[in-house]
């Protein structure tokens, strides 16, 4: 059975992915990456869970400090990926998922699937713009969203 890693960002990002995970878990083993500062994992989450710090809490005006502060986060992402058995990573936009997407694709050679948020009718998110060129598969949830060349519309979670 193949393994798929899903990066949950908390809030709406998590909520919208749950029905998809439910279906995918029939065919794949699911690994979750959740935020340390998020709510405790829901009971509906079944499978291996990795916890990562929230990069948003590390924002700073000083660019040197940002780099310095992001360092432990990147180490953590690296550690998670080296322990993971996943063949593919699914991300749905939150900031926490971007470095995992980069490391996962470029260093760990995993397949990368990006799903643009259901709140994006026409525009693309910052995460999407950062990650699109690396993604093997991109979904938009509104048929009129032309933000990404390769994007597929395959329905909406909500």
């Amino acid at each position, binding site marked *: 059975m193949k393994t798929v890693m899903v990066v949950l960002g908390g809030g709406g990002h998590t909520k919208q992915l749950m029905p998809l995970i439910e279906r995918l878990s029939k065919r794949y083993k699911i690994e979750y990456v959740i935020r340390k500062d998020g709510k405790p994992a829901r009971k509906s989450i079944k499978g291996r869970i990795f916890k990562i710090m929230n990069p948003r809490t590390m924002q700073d005006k000083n660019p040197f400090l940002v780099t310095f502060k992001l360092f432990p986060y990147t180490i953590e992402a690296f550690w998670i990926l080296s322990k993971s058995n996943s063949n593919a990573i699914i991300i749905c936009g939150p900031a926490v998922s971007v470095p995992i997407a980069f490391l996962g694709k470029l260093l760990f050679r995993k397949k990368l699937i990006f799903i643009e948020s259901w709140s994006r009718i026409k525009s693309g*998110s910052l995460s999407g713009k950062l990650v699109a060129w690396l993604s093997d598969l991109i979904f938009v949830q*509104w048929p009129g969203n032309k933000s990404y060349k390769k994007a597929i519309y395959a329905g909406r979670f909500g």
Partner: protein
Amino acid sequence: MIFVTVGTGKFERLVKVADELAKRVKEKVIIQKGSSVCDVKNAECFEFSSDFDKYVEKADIIISHGGAGTIFSLMGKGKKVIGVANLNRIDRHQEEILEELDKQENLIYCKDFNLLRDVKKIKNIKLKKYKKPGFWIDRKIEEFLG
């Protein structure tokens, strides 16, 4: 009853305007103010509640922030929704979704915080039921990953 929800974030402007609205409508107004830092004088108010769904159920009209998860869930329950975009947030995508759903006549997007006008308006119009398109993203992923 009119139920106002700002979600988990801060949305003082909506809380204040809803508090003013409470003075001017006959219905009871209940405000879920999240982490907003402001006093409410004319309405019943709480920060968070485990009874959130009960308030939603009892409400005739719901005034909500534009978070997509909340909006989809409220429309799914067949509620009359007035959406207000919270532009305090890092990006401005709440505007985008509310504009689209207003255009489809699934809800009313209150752009200028004139809640009184839109409460009157929503009582007199018939909104269209939001049709869930469903999704087949899982099938596409399975085709790709095998």
